């Protein structure tokens, strides 16, 4: 597959455009925001649908439960704030009124991971996927670029049930096709290969794409699969690929405990054990810095994926 960078765009803007489009398609789509309308790119929705936009102020717990209350009447509420305040801060509200009560609330979580940058560890949540995937009834979606985030937002609006939608702040390569349909729960095969499978999500999908030609020069023919839906995991796609490649690298902007790698490891251990390496944050908190500096510092960059692949391929042999 040819990977062409169409432009550099932030995934949060993909959410903003997706929300607007979802709102145009379905008059039941409503949005709540806890004083971060600009950061979440929700301004266009608020302008076009002022009656369906609810500014909650800095009160995330109230926001989540109001959204659950509104979902009762057939509305499709999106809540918007940073990922840190969309999960840890409101875990009990999500657990009781969204997940356990199975309400059709979409939790839109921006500025996830270390690529939030200079704000530092208080805001750089790296545990949100773990928190959300542990909840019964919850679907966890982590799209990789602008186009995919827009499509995932529209798909989340059409899906009936709680969804956690994770995206980020920095401008990153936008390379998936415009208006490609997003299928929740369906892994996306980006590159076929035979020697190793790289399972990646979010911003690290592009980092894995960058690793492909480097690996090819080394004689390693890597398969790349974008796991944009962490839960429910496309187990069939995982096992099918592993049957062929017999070793795995996972790559994510998240703690190694409880993230994508953890989910893949469970599938392998229960079904088809094989060597595996994880590119993830290793049980530490984030730091201030630029997104690029932080990806390097926390070993989440292209060279780190290349090293992990070399290591796992050697283990296989």
């Amino acid at each position: 597959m040819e990977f062409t960078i169409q432009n550099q765009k932030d995934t949060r803007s993909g959410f903003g455009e997706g929300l607007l489009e979802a709102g145009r398609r379905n008059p039941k789509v409503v949005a709540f925001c806890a004083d971060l309308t600009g950061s979440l790119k929700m301004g266009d929705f608020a302008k076009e649908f002022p009656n369906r936009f609810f500014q909650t102020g800095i009160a995330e717990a109230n926001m989540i439960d109001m959204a659950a209350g509104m979902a009762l009447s057939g509305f499709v509420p999106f809540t918007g704030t940073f990922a840190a305040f969309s999960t840890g801060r409101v875990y009990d509200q999500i657990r009781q009124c969204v997940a356990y009560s199975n309400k059709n609330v979409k939790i839109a979580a921006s500025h996830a991971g270390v690529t939030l940058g200079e704000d530092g560890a208080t805001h750089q949540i790296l545990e949100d996927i773990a928190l959300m995937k542990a909840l019964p009834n919850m679907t966890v979606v982590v799209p990789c670029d602008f186009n995919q985030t827009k499509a995932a937002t529209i798909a989340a609006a059409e899906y009936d049930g709680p969804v956690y939608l994770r995206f980020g702040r920095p401008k990153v390569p936008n390379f998936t096709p415009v208006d490609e349909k997003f299928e929740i729960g369906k892994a996306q095969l980006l590159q076929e290969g035979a020697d190793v499978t790289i399972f990646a999500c979010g911003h690290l999908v592009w980092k894995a794409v960058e690793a492909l030609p480097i690996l090819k020069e080394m004689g390693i023919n890597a398969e790349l699969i974008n796991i944009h839906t962490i839960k429910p995991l496309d187990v069939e796609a995982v096992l099918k690929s592993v049957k062929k490649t017999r070793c795995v690298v996972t790559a994510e902007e998240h703690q190694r405990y409880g993230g994508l790698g953890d989910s893949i490891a469970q599938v392998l251990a229960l079904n088809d054990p094989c060597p595996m390496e994880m590119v993830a944050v290793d049980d530490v908190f984030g730091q201030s810095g630029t997104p690029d500096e932080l990806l390097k510092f926390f070993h989440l960059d292209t060279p780190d994926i290349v090293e992990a692949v070399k290591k796992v391929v050697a283990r296989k042999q």
Partner: protein
Amino acid sequence: MTINELERIATQVRRDIIRMVHGCQSGHPGGSLGATDVVTALYFDQMDIDPAHYRMDGEGEDMFFLSNGHISPMLYSIMARRGYFPVSELATFRRLGTRLQGHPTPMEGLPGIRIASGSLGQGLSVAVGAAQAKKLNGDQHLVFVLMGDGEQEEGQIWEAAMYAPAKGVDNLIAIIDYNKKQIDGSTDDVMNLGDLRAKYEAFGWNVLELSGNNMQAVVNTLKFARENAFQGKPQLILAHTEMGMGVDFMMGTHKWHGSAPNDEQAANALSQLTETLGDY
């Protein structure tokens, strides 16, 4: 419905509460007994509801949320007696496989429960959201929510309390079961709530007070609140109640917040409550 009829229902509900909690040897009788009159008046007289055609979305009817979900025996009894599900099902309370979970949930398919509660401080927010949905739908019905007084210690209550007046959510009537007791003791000792009336008024609510175990006062005040809805402000009712009301040894103490009576105590309690509608 006459006051006498409402009182007869409330007495049977109190019998149901004692029998349910005694039956499974767990649950929260004290608060349930205290809040019985207010919620009986809502379900049998003051709310426009249609249990025979229950809809999750509550469209075209009033909606009720129980924020302090631990007083579930009271709600289950009233809902069963009102026709949401068979009265005989009250015998399954808190038992494995029941739709009558320890704390209310929609997940077991019990008609009339729209959202889970139990973790405190969340019901007011849910009710605000539901009330706003009614406004968006042009539905001229009301949303009611009952909260505990101890629950006012949760910070989220005050997030919702700030939001509702600021956004003109005036189709909402919130009620505090003001029995001044919580698990660890009196609210004055655990966490002095101060002047709740003044606090809500300062946040922009219209505040009413009523004697919560006087059925005539309950009905009159709820009716007044209904008539004063849709005038720009949410309304809060401080319902002064007695924890354990109707059973002498359960009153005047916080001891029965979350304890079940033994056989002898249950018999004693039931001897104080006339069987008016037939036990389940």
